[in-house]
C-alpha cells in the first residue's frame, strides 16, 4: 500500500464543522487585531522615506518583504550579542516557518485534490522534513523557557505574558506530534523511519494504550486539543507581544539601513 495521509481522519462531520466555525472565528479575531495594530502604525509621523505614505496593506507587504532580508532571516544582529540566543531563535523561527508552509501545502492539497505531498515517496520526505522541524521547534522553545525562567536575571525581568507565547506554541507542537504518533500507532505503517519523532510518540502511546478504541479516542482528543490551541494561538497573536512577528523585521531592516554604523556591528 502506498504511504499516504488522510486529512481530518477519525473526525466526524460534526467535529469538522465545529472546527471550521471555531477556526473562522479565530481567523476573524486575528485579522481584526492585525488591522487594528497596523492601523496604529499608519498614524505616526512620516519620517523615513521607506515608510512614507504607506497604509495598512503597504506596511503588511513591507513586513512580509523585510522578513526575507539577510539581517532578519539570519538574525545577524542577535548573533553578534549571543550565539546561544541566535541558534535558539533560528530553531524557533525557521522550524515554525517550515511547519507553517507544511500546513498551508497540506490544506491546499486537501482542498484542491493535488496528490503531491500526501501520497507516495513525496509524502515520506515531506513527513520527515516536518518531523525534524517540529523537533527543532521543541528544542528552541524549551531552551527559551529554560533561559527565561531559570537564570536569575531573566526570571527577574520576565512576565507571565512572556511565558504564554512559548507555552501555547509548545503545546501546539507537542499535541501535533501526539496526533501523528497516535495515527501511526493505529495504522501501523511500515515506513515509521520517516517520522522519527512521531514514531517515538507511537511507541509511547502503544505502551500506554492497548486497545484500538482507546487509541482512536486519544487521537480524537489530541486532534481537537491541537486544533483548538493552534487557533487560540492564531487569535492571540495580534493582542500579545507575539505581534513582533510582524514588526521586528521592519525595524531590524530599517535600523541596518538608517543607522548602520551606530547600532550594528559591521
Amino acid at each position: 500500500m502506498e504511504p499516504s495521509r488522510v486529512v481530518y481522519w477519525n473526525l466526524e462531520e460534526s467535529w469538522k464543522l465545529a472546527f471550521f466555525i471555531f477556526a473562522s472565528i479565530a481567523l476573524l479575531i486575528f485579522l481584526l487585531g492585525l488591522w487594528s495594530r497596523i492601523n496604529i502604525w499608519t498614524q505616526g509621523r512620516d519620517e523615513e522615506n521607506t515608510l512614507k505614505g504607506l497604509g495598512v496593506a503597504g506596511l503588511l507587504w513591507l513586513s512580509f518583504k523585510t522578513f526575507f532580508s539577510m539581517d532578519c532571516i539570519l538574525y545577524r544582529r542577535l548573533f553578534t550579542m549571543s550565539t546561544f540566543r541566535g541558534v535558539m531563535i533560528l530553531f524557533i523561527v525557521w522550524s515554525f516557518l517550515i511547519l507553517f508552509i507544511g500546513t498551508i501545502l497540506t490544506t491546499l492539497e486537501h482542498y484542491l485534490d493535488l496528490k503531491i505531498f500526501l501520497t507516495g515517496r513525496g509524502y515520506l520526505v515531506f513527513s520527515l522534513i516536518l518531523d525534524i522541524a517540529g523537533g527543532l521547534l521543541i528544542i528552541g522553545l524549551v531552551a527559551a523557557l529554560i533561559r527565561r525562567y531559570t537564570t536569575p536575571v531573566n526570571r527577574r525581568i520576565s512576565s507571565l505574558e512572556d511565558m504564554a507565547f512559548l507555552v501555547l506554541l509548545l503545546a501546539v507542537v507537542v499535541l501535533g506530534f501526539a496526533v501523528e504518533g497516535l495515527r501511526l500507532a493505529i495504522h501501523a505503517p511500515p515506513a515509521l523511519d520517516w517520522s522519527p519523532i512521531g514514531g517515538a510518540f507511537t511507541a509511547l502511546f502503544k505502551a500506554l494504550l492497548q486497545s484500538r478504541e482507546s487509541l482512536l479516542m486519544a487521537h480524537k482528543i489530541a486532534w481537537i486539543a491541537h486544533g483548538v490551541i493552534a487557533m487560540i494561538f492564531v487569535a492571540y497573536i495580534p493582542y500579545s507581544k507575539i505581534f513582533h512577528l510582524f514588526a521586528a523585521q521592519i525595524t531590524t531592516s530599517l535600523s541596518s539601513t538608517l543607522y548602520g554604523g551606530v547600532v550594528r556591528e559591521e
Partner: protein
Amino acid sequence: MKNNLISNLSKRQLIELDACTRCGLCAEWCSVVLAVEDYVNTPMDKIRQYKDFIQATHGLRARLLGPKKIADEELERFADELYKCSTCGRCGAVCPVGIHCQELWIDIRATMRELGYGPQDKIDEALEILEKVHNPFGLPMEERNDWIPRDIEIPEKAELAFFVGCELAYKAKPMAQGAVRLLKAANIPFTILTDEWCCGFPPYVLGERGEEFAAEVEKNVEGLKAKGVKRVAPYCPCCLAVMRRGWPEVVELPFETVHVLKIIAEAVEDGKIKFNKSFKGTVTYHDPCYLSRGWGSGENLTDEPRTIIKSIPGVEIVEMEHNKKFSLCPGSGGGIRRTNLDLSHEMSIPVLKEAEATEAKVLLTACPAVYERFKMTINEKIYEPKIKIMDILEFAVAHL
C-alpha cells in the same frame, strides 16, 4: 486625555514599540540598571507600558468601545521612570531588532511634557534660566567668551564655524581652548559666534520643543547664516546631536554639521598636525554616549579620537572593558543631572572603576558633560578615582 499619545512618534517608532520581543538584552546592558544593581525601570518595561497606553487609547477595544482613560497616577509614575534615564542608548545599541531607543525616549518625553507629566517644575526652571541668559547654568552672558585665549585671533568670517556650546564656554574651558589651538595648529581657518546662545539640547532632551527651544535655534542659525559658514563644528556631542535632529525641526539648515574631532583626526592623518612632545605610559579613552551611539548623528565617532591619541609619540591605549558602542554611561546626559542627580552620581562610579581597572595613567574623555560629571564626583567626594582625568583635546595640545 489632553493630548495624543502617538502624535510625537514616527511610523518607525510606533512599529518599534510592537517589535520588542522582551528578550531582556536591553535590561542587561542598561547603564541605570547596572548602576543601581536592580532590574527596575528597564527599557523593555517602558516600551511595554507605553504600548499598553497606546492600545488603551487607540487599540481595537478603543475603536469599538471608545478610548480608555489612563489614570493620572499611572502616567505620572511612567513619566517619573522615563526621566530616570541618561538617554545613553546602550539599550538600542544591543537591541537585536534594531529599536533605536534613544530617540524613542526623547520623543515620548516630548509627549509627557505636552501632557504635563514628569518633572515639570525642573523643566520650567531650566527654561526660565535659558530665557534669561541663554545657557543652562544661569551664568552671565557677558562671561560667555571669557574662554578665548588672548594669543589666538579668530576671524570674523570663515567657511567653518566652531560652535563652542555652553558647557565648553563656561565650565570645561580647556576643551574649547584645546579645540581652537588644534584648529590653528592645523592651519584650518575658522570663525565663532561671539553672541552664541545655547544649542537647545537641555530643553530638547527633556521633551521641551516649544518657543524657547525654537528661539535658541533660530538665533544661532541666523548668526551662522550671516557669517556665510558652510560647515558648523561643535565639540560637545550633545550640541551635535541636537543640531542634527532638533534644529531641522525648527528651521532648514544652510550648512553641514561635523564634529571637531573628525576635523582634527583628518588633519592628523594628513600630517597637518604633528605632536612633538612624547608621553611615556598608557592612557584609556571613554567613548561618550552621544559620539559612539548618538541619536540623529547617523555616524559613530569611535576611530577618530583613537587616531588622535595614537599619533602622540609614546602613548599606548589600553581599552576599558566596555568601549566604543558598548561604553558605559557615567550619567551625565539626557537631563539626568537636572532631574535625578543622585542617580547620576551613582552612574559615574562604575565608569571610573572600569577606567582604574585598566591601570592606565590617564583617563581621556571627549565630552564636556562627562568631564564635568567626573569633576563633580571627585569634588563632592562621591568617589575618588586613582586615575588622572583629562580631556582628549587638552591632552593633545599639551603634546604639540
